[in-house]
């Protein structure tokens, strides 16, 4: 059996104040597979991210990245193979220029200034930010920052990616660009998000998480279209999957209802 990119077995974690964030979660993500991670706030999505990157130590169970268990001893190795895109790109772009941010990971791996430069430029070119290489990170737009963070993470060549709310704060165009970039990647991807339309766009498979447990694990369309399954867990069916235009009922009685009916034909 080929090694899964991500293998999580009975992972559990409780915060110092006693809250049980995860109560035994198991799943796996295959090489190159894109899996969505959805659920209400507090479900444990971010906790999984921290556990996978080794910032938290599980109370029980284990997380395995590319065949290596995530432990204090293996942190360096794991982090070389795992790229994490955090929720706030300002936290990830901490160097004076974009070039420096992307070069950061490479230099930490022991790269020499000489062969770092072409790789940095290539990574920036892939996300379309080559011309901004000398820009101060703080001067970029939200969309550019997200792409920059992506480049900074991709440049060291990770095999697995975990993304935490990657499309929040993005305007439609930036969001579209980001989705396209992510879709073109070949790494295994675990994407935690509230943006269900994006999940549908990018992930054939989705994990529904609530109260620290995996409630459902299967094809995205099947799960997300099932109102009776997802609504008790704080989600609602994305508009693109609705066959009966339920949202018209929200407009019911408002002046907009007539407009909408006209448009629908």
């Amino acid at each position, binding site marked *: 059996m080929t090694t899964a990119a991500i293998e999580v077995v009975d992972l559990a974690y409780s915060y110092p104040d006693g809250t049980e964030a995860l109560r035994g979660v198991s799943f796996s993500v295959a090489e190159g597979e894109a899996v969505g991670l959805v659920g209400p706030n507090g479900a444990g999505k971010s906790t999984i991210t921290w556990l996978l990157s080794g910032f938290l130590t599980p109370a029980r169970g284990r997380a395995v990245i590319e065949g290596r268990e995530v432990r204090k001893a293996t942190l360096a190795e794991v*982090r070389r193979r795992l790229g994490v895109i955090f929720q706030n790109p300002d936290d*990830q772009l901490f160097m004076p220029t974009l070039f420096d941010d992307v070069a950061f990971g490479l230099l*930490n791996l022991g790269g020499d200034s000489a062969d770092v430069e072409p790789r940095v430029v290539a990574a920036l070119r892939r996300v379309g930010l080559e011309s901004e290489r000398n820009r101060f990170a703080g001067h970029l737009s939200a969309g550019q920052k997200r792409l920059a963070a992506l480049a900074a993470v991709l440049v060291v060549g990770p095999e697995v990616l975990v993304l935490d709310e990657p499309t929040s704060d993005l305007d439609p165009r930036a969001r579209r660009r980001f989705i396209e970039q992510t879709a073109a990647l070949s790494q295994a991807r675990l994407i935690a998000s509230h943006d269900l339309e994006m999940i549908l766009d990018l992930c054939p498979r989705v994990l529904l998480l609530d109260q620290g447990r995996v409630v459902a694990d299967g094809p995205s369309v099947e799960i997300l279209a099932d109102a009776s399954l997802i609504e008790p867990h704080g989600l609602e069916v994305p508009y693109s999957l609705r066959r009966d235009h339920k949202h018209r009922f929200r407009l019911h009685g408002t002046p907009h209802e007539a407009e909408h009916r006209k448009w629908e034909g």
Partner: protein
Amino acid sequence: MTIHSARLLDQLGYGETPIHRLDPRAKTLATLGFILIVVSFPKYDVAPLIPLALYPLAFMILGQIPPGVILKRTLAVSPFAVLVGIFNPLFDTEPMVRIAGLSISGGWVSFASILVRFVLTISAALALVATTSFPRICQGLDALKVPRAFIVQMLFLYRYLFVLVEEALRLRRARDLRRFGRRRGLRPRVAASLIGVLFLRTYERAERVYLAMCARGFDGHVRLARRLRFGWRDAAFVTGTVAACLILRLVPVVHWLGRWGESWL
């Protein structure tokens, strides 16, 4: 100086003129040399300082800095110099110059000298910042063997300066809105609680940045990419500037000019 003007100054530093492209070491050393020479003039020298205005002027013109930028800021901070210098005429009343029967005390002469020095040193500093982005200045200082820990500190400060200031302004505005236009300024107790909140957010941000750094392989050592190249232009700039200033300092050019002019009258 408001944060707004600071931001503008910051933006200017990222321009693309030949002055901008000079090595930051050259510009920093030249500016420092300039300032040292300016303040080395005797207490009562006024006119000999005038030709030195060419240094900041050259920067402004060749660096395409809008003159208003320098003028406004110099004016804005000048009250301080006036406030301190105004005591000179009050205490030094012995006449020093006689012009057309009018007797001017030494105090006024030294006051004028202070003002001229002030304008020169402030505009030189402004010129430096407006033609060199802060990261480049730090890069130059790093190449000049300033302790790396300090350089890194300044770079991180700069990176999060505007971010945190924005946050603070938002907090303050939110608080202001709830005070319904009562007098400006906050009571110390209120200010302290805002500061406390800000501090916690700051601390948490620092944590997140730390995690992001670790996720990209941070081992305690911040490595900076790219070397600066010191070319003949830069060498010429520094030596030329310092030489010119030294000449103006040691050779009574203005005096000679005056005598020559006098001989025509």
